[in-house]
């Protein structure tokens, strides 16, 4: 029996982010009032409390803030992927993105430049991944 993958339970606040990924674009929220960029998507700008929001396309460029390598899958779907390297990167826009690191045999370190790419998993789900830049 095929194991179901974990899917995001998206809503009105977050759908544009996932739609962007499907189009091969990494989108961040930008406050429609003061311009502060934020991530993950949420309802209110914590700088000026405006609920006006626009979505901007990110450069996709960042530097490793931290990383870890999973040797245990906590969901059966990911057993085939072990070990999995996760990177959290400081993006040029000032927010962070967490994603799997691709590239054979790459061992990350803090400050290492990375770039975002997109992996289409099926018709409904595309996820961000990192490659060494």
């Amino acid at each position: 029996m095929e194991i179901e993958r974990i899917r995001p339970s998206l809503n009105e606040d977050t759908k544009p982010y996932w739609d962007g990924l499907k189009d091969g674009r990494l989108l961040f929220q930008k406050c429609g009032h003061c311009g502060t960029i934020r991530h993950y998507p949420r309802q209110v700008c914590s700088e000026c409390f405006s609920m006006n929001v626009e979505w901007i396309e990110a450069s996709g460029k960042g530097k490793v803030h931290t990383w870890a390598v999973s040797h245990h899958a906590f969901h059966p779907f990911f057993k085939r992927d072990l070990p999995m390297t996760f990177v959290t990167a400081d993006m040029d826009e000032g927010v962070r993105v967490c994603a799997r690191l691709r590239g054979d045999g790459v061992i990350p370190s803090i400050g290492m430049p990375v770039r975002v790419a997109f992996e289409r998993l099926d018709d409904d789900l595309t996820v961000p991944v990192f490659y060494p830049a």
Partner: protein
Amino acid sequence: MPNILFEKCAISGIGETAYVRGSGKSETALQMEASLRAIADAGLSPKDIDGVIPYATGSAVAEDFITNFGIADLRLSATTPLGGAGCIAAVQNAVGAIVAGIANHVLIPIGRNGYSGARIGSRVQQLPQFRTVGEFEMPLGQIAPVQLYAQMARRHMETFGTKSEHFGKIAVTIREHATMNENTLMTEPLTLEQHQNSRMISDPLRLFDCCLESDGGAAIVISSGERARDLKSKPVYIMGIAEGHPDSPSAITQRPDMTTLGTAKAAPRAFGMAGVDHKDIDVAEIYDCFTYIVLCQLEDLGFCKKGEGGDFVASTSLGLDGPMPINTHGGLLSQAHIIGMNHIVELAKQLRGEAGKAQVRDAKIGLVTGYGDMGDGGVAIMRA
């Protein structure tokens, strides 16, 4: 002038079930069993309980206690959804409610089948506090707390030079304490070599950096100090208590300083309320879901500076021969994972002088922490 809550309330009763893998009992039954023991320890009748703060994501609600105990007029029902910091947060709420005259005897029960029931890793996704991680990180394969905490630990290691051996020393010491306890899952000592050779779960965190999954229940009763003095057991007074929430509480990956927990905000408040200094703490029960989280809390509590946790752990004994023994019961790492209620119960035992082989000599003032939901911290300072 002392804080309005200073020493106004006390732990009047403590209770625990056996800690096992495979309880054969329902989670609610475990809570009832532990609660009845805590109430009997206080010398109260179950009908005397007029406040209940059950575990926020547990199986039982206050109504279950009204029904089982025949409570005629329950005046306080609340929950504190801070994960492993929830027990300390519940004590803070109980103290506030008692001082305000809302309730007299508040029961705080925990009971869970963490081993034989739904595994911890698989149920976090259901919690609203984990919605953000659930949407943005779990679909990528980052599912369990250990995977997130591994990224926190790595940041600490690369920034400050902290080593896996530092985590190992914490695991070894806490295991040593578990072997002195009769109600414990882990009964054999652990060596640093065994720690270093244990398999990676989420690099840099190894198997022996992770807490146990276990079944069991524990409970306490909080009463006013005045009432507690007339009850059966020696009151353990709450000198200082606080909860703290980290920046970006729902997404560790977005936290400005990934190496600081909510504990750092709670600690100055708890110490300030208690009116004591770090050197006054004789024994500390520190929430130990992962070894790294213990090291990070030692810093956030102020026992050493941020970044110096590795050196502190390497140069200071955390055992019974040291200046401040930690996790004298064996903690979540080696006794059982009872959401930190076992830490509160152990501190009460230490301060009452009832901690058996692991009794810290002349333990007068003690500290207990809670930690959970990716960064929430709770700190309480007590004396008998």
